[in-house]
């Protein structure tokens, strides 16, 4: 899994690629948390994520909750793989989409 940050005029885009599973989620949680602390508007670009398990979904839920608590805007841009898992968890409307 790779994370690349792109600063635009309106928001920070975190481009996340590869597979998100239990082995990667500690690192992902920490990096997204720092991004939320340092930026007002954030997009998580997950369009190149090929696999996400429930531990990865948990990181997305935690990140969304943290952003709400800090009054930050967090949006997601999803791959079909991620969208299908969020639909299975009935979470597709829980997140704000980019």
């Amino acid at each position: 899994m790779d994370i690349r940050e792109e600063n635009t005029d309106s928001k920070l885009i975190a481009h996340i690629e590869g597979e998100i599973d239990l082995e990667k989620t500690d690192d992902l949680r920490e990096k997204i948390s720092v991004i939320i602390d340092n930026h007002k508007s954030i997009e998580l670009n997950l369009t190149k994520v090929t696999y996400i398990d429930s531990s990865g979904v948990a990181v997305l839920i935690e990140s969304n909750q943290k952003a709400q608590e800090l009054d930050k805007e967090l949006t997601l841009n999803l791959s079909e793989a991620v969208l299908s898992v969020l639909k299975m968890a009935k979470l597709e409307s829980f997140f704000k989409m980019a």
Partner: protein
Amino acid sequence: MLTKTFKGDKSDLTHIRKFIQDFLKEEGIKEDLQYQVILAIGEAAMNIVQHAYRGGDSSKKIKVDLSLEEQLLLISFFDEGIKVDPSKIKPRKLEDIRPGGLGTHFIKMVMDDVQWGEVKDNWVNNLILKKKL
């Protein structure tokens, strides 16, 4: 039947998924169904690492048996971790949105049958997942 043994650690979760994916590809299973099965299998393997091995123990093993006969996919996991009490495994309610508790939901949603089998030798738990393909 195919059998492979992995480390009881999160570093081998990707290898367990690859093992299953290669098998499903070889059997000509369509991609969206492959993805669902791999998700369920990945969750089952993650549960073993997280709970039976309390976050992972690379000195312990996870054995995976795979077979497909008359379109019935059978995946059997063996581990040597803490004995699982199946009565305590419950998915969370989906409307109760919080981190965690989704893995069991995914497994039950994808697979047709989830059972705990009898164990022998040094194995402690045997989780058997079945799906008609």
